[in-house]
C-alpha cells in the first residue's frame, strides 16, 4: 500500500496545496518540486519489487497493481513529471508567467501527472479509461495558459478530438465487457485486467476483435497515431514548454499502454496476427505522415511534435514484431520519454529568447546560447537516431527484430521513411544553430541552472546508448513475458 501512496500522493498533495494557497507563492512550486522526487523514489521502489520477482498489489480486489509494464510507465511519468515540476513556472525566477498562471500550472500539471500515474497502476480497465479521459481534461486546461487565437484553437481541437477518441475507447471497453459478461456472468471483478487475461482464451473472436478496433482507434487518437493525429502538432506547439514535454514524453506512451493492456487480452483470445496487422498498418502510416510533414516544417515546436508521431509509430511497429520487437519498443518508449521531454524544455528556452516558434526566426543559436544550443543539437542527433544515444540502440534492436521476424520489405520502407525524417530534421536544425543571430538578440544563457536536469537527461541518453543496464534489461524482459507472447 505505502509504495502506491508515495507514488500517487505527492502530485495530489501538490495540486491541493496549489489550489489552497491564493494568491500564488513560490513556496508552493518548491514544495511541489521536492514532492515530485518522492514519486520518482516510489517508482524506483516498484522497480525494485519487480527485480525481486514480486508484483505489488494493493486495495480491495487488487485495485492497484504494478507489474513490469506498469512500473516502466510509472517510472517514465514520474521522471518527466519531476522535470516539469522543477522546470515549470512559479519557482520565483524570471519567467513568462504571472502568478495566477503559475498557480493554474501547479494545480492542473499535478493533476495531469496524478491521472497518468493512476492510469498505469490501476488494475481495473474501467478506471484506466476514466483516468485517461481525465488526462485530456487536465492537460487541456493548460494549453491556453497564454490566451492567444492559436492556443485557443489548439485547445479546442485537442479537447474535441481527444474526447471523441476517448469516447470510442469507452465503446471498446463496453464491448469487451459485454463479451466477458456473456462468458462469466456479471461480476464485480470482471473489469479487472488480471481477471480478463485469465478468461481471455475463451472469448468470442468476432466480438473481442470489434472491441479492439474501437479501443485502438480510441486510445490511438490520444497516442497520436495517424490518421487520428491531427490534434497533436497543434496542441504540442501551442502548449507551454513543460506541458508539451509531458504530453510528448509520456502522455502518448500512457495511451499506448492502454492499447497494450487490451492487446494482450486480444492476443490471448485470437492469436497475435490480428493485432499485429493493425499495429503495422497504423504504425507505418504514422511514420509516413510524420516523415513527409517534417519535410515542409517551418515551426520547430511542430517539428518536434511530428517527430513524436514518428516515434509513436515506431513503437507501434515494434509491438507487432514479436518478443524482440516488444523489447525494442519498450526501450524506445523510455528513450523517447527522456529525449523528447528534454527537447521540448530546450525549445521552451529558445522560444523565451527568440520570441518566435518559426525556424527562420531563429539563427545563431550556438552563438547566443552555447549550452542550450549544444544540448539542442545533441538532442536532435539523439532524436533522429544517431549513436551514441539510446534511441539508436532501440531503433537498431527494432530493425533487427523486424528482419528476424521475416519482414525485410517492411523494414526497408520504414528505414527509407526514417531517412526522410532524418535529412529534413537535420536541415531544419542546422539553420537554427548557425548563422548570425538577428540584431538585438541577447547573448548568454540567462538562468543557467535549468540546464542541470536537462544535462542529466542527456547523460542518461548517452548511458543508454552505450549499454542496457542490468536492472533495465530485467525489467524489459519481464514486460516481454507479459506483452510479447
Amino acid at each position, binding site marked *: 500500500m505505502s509504495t502506491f501512496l508515495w507514488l500517487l500522493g505527492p502530485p495530489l498533495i501538490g495540486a491541493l496545496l496549489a489550489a489552497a494557497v491564493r494568491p500564488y507563492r513560490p513556496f508552493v512550486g518548491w514544495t511541489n518540486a521536492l514532492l515530485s522526487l518522492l514519486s520518482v523514489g516510489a517508482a524506483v521502489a516498484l522497480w525494485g519489487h519487480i527485480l525481486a520477482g514480486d508484483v505489488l498489489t494493493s486495495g480491495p480486489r487488487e485495485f492497484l497493481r504494478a507489474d513490469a509494464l506498469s512500473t516502466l510507465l510509472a517510472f517514465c511519468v514520474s521522471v518527466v513529471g519531476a522535470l516539469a515540476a522543477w522546470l515549470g513556472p512559479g519557482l520565483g525566477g524570471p519567467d513568462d508567467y504571472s502568478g495566477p498562471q503559475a498557480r493554474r500550472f501547479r494545480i492542473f500539471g499535478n493533476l495531469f501527472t496524478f491521472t497518468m500515474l493512476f492510469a498505469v497502476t490501476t488494475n481495473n480497465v474501467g478506471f484506466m479509461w476514466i483516468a485517461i479521459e481525465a488526462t485530456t*481534461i487536465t492537460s487541456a486546461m493548460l494549453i491556453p495558459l497564454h490566451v492567444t487565437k492559436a492556443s485557443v484553437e489548439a485547445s479546442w481541437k485537442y479537447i474535441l478530438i481527444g474526447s471523441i477518441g476517448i469516447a470510442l475507447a469507452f465503446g471498446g471497453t463496453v464491448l469487451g465487457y459485454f463479451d466477458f459478461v456473456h462468458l462469466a456472468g456479471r461480476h464485480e471483478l470482471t473489469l479487472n485486467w488480471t481477471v480478463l487475461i485469465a478468461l481471455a482464451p475463451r472469448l468470442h473472436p468476432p466480438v473481442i476483435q470489434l472491441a479492439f478496433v474501437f479501443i485502438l482507434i480510441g486510445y490511438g487518437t490520444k497516442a497520436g497515431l495517424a490518421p487520428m493525429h491531427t490534434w497533436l502538432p497543434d496542441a504540442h506547439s501551442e502548449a507551454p514548454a513543460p506541458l508539451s514535454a509531458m504530453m510528448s514524453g509520456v502522455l502518448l506512451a500512457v495511451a499506448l499502454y492502454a492499447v497494450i493492456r487490451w492487446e494482450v487480452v486480444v492476443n490471448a483470445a485470437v492469436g497475435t496476427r490480428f493485432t499485429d496487422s493493425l499495429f503495422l498498418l497504423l504504425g507505418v502510416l504514422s511514420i509516413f505522415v510524420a516523415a513527409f510533414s517534417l519535410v515542409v*516544417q517551418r515551426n520547430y515546436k511542430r517539428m518536434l511534435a511530428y517527430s513524436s508521431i514518428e516515434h509513436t509509430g515506431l513503437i507501434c511497429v515494434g509491438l507487432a514484431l514479436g518478443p524482440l520487437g516488444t523489447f525494442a519498443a519498450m526501450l524506445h518508449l523510455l528513450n523517447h520519454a527522456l529525449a523528447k521531454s528534454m527537447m521540448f524544455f530546450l525549445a521552451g528556452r529558445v522560444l523565451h529568447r527568440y520570441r518566435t516558434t518559426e525556424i527562420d526566426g531563429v539563427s545563431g543559436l550556438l552563438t547566443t546560447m552555447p549550452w542550450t544550443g549544444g544540448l539542442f543539437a545533441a538532442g536532435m542527433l539523439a532524436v533522429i537516431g544517431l549513436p551514441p544515444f539510446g534511441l539508436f540502440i532501440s531503433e537498431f534492436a527494432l530493425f533487427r527484430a523486424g528482419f528476424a521476424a521475416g519482414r525485410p520489405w517492411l523494414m526497408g520502407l520504414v528505414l527509407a521513411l526514417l531517412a526522410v525524417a532524418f535529412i529534413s530534421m537535420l536541415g531544419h536544425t542546422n539553420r537554427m544553430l548557425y548563422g548570425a543571430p538577428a540584431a538585438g538578440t541577447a547573448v548568454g544563457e540567462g538562468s543557467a541552472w535549468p540546464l542541470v536536469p536537462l544535462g542529466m537527461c542527456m547523460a542518461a541518453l548517452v548511458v543508454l546508448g552505450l549499454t542496457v543496464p542490468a536492472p533495465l534489461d530485467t525489467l524489459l524482459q519481464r514486460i516481454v513475458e507479459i506483452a510479447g507472447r
Partner: protein
Amino acid sequence: MDSVFSQVCVLGSSLVLIFGLTLLWRRSVTAYITAFQWQSIVLSGLTAVVAYFGGDHELYLAAGALAALKAVVIPRLLRRMEHRFAAARELQPYVNTPTSLVIAGLLVLFGYAITRPLVALSQLPTRAGMPLAMGLVLVSLFVVISRKKALTQVVGFLMLENGLALLAVLGTYGIPLIVELGVFLDVLMGFLVMQIFMYQIHETFESIDIEQLNRLRH
C-alpha cells in the same frame, strides 16, 4: 413479459436514435438542445425500465444520475451558452441535408452489420436495440465531423456519449456502478472544460464558427 420488455427496448432505442437524427435536418441550435434533452430523458427512462425488468437496483441510481446530469444540468448550461452567444442558426454545414440523411441511413445499416456478432451472442431480451445504439454512435460521429458551430459539435459529442451509454445498458445491463459514476464525473468535467473553451473562442474570435479556427496548418 419478456416480449413486452424487448418491445419497449426497441421502441426506446428507436426514439433515442431519432432524436439523434434530428441534428441532421434542423438548423437551429435551440432545436438541437431540446432534442438532446428529450433523448436523455428517454435514455434515462429506458435505463429505469431495464433496471425494473432486469432486477438490477444499482441501475436505478445510474438512471437517476443520467437524468440529473444530461436531462437537467447540461441542457441548462447549453441554453445559457446559446443565449450568450446568440448563435441561433447553424451555418450551411459541410454536407447538405439530403446527403446527410442518406449517409446517416447507411451508417445505421453499417451499425447493424458490425453489431451482428453481438446480437448473435447475447441472450438478453434487450439485444435487438444494440444495432440502433451503434447507429447513434456512428451518426453522432458524422455530425461532429460535418458541422461548423462549436456548440453543435458539443451536442454531437454528448449524443455520442448517449449512444455508448445505451449500448452499455442494452448489452450488459450497464457497467459496474462505481465505474459508471466515474464516467459521469468525467462527462461533466469534460463538458465544463469545453464550455470554458467555448467562452474563450467567443472572446478571442468574436464568433463560435470553427471555420475561423484555421490558423494552425501543417
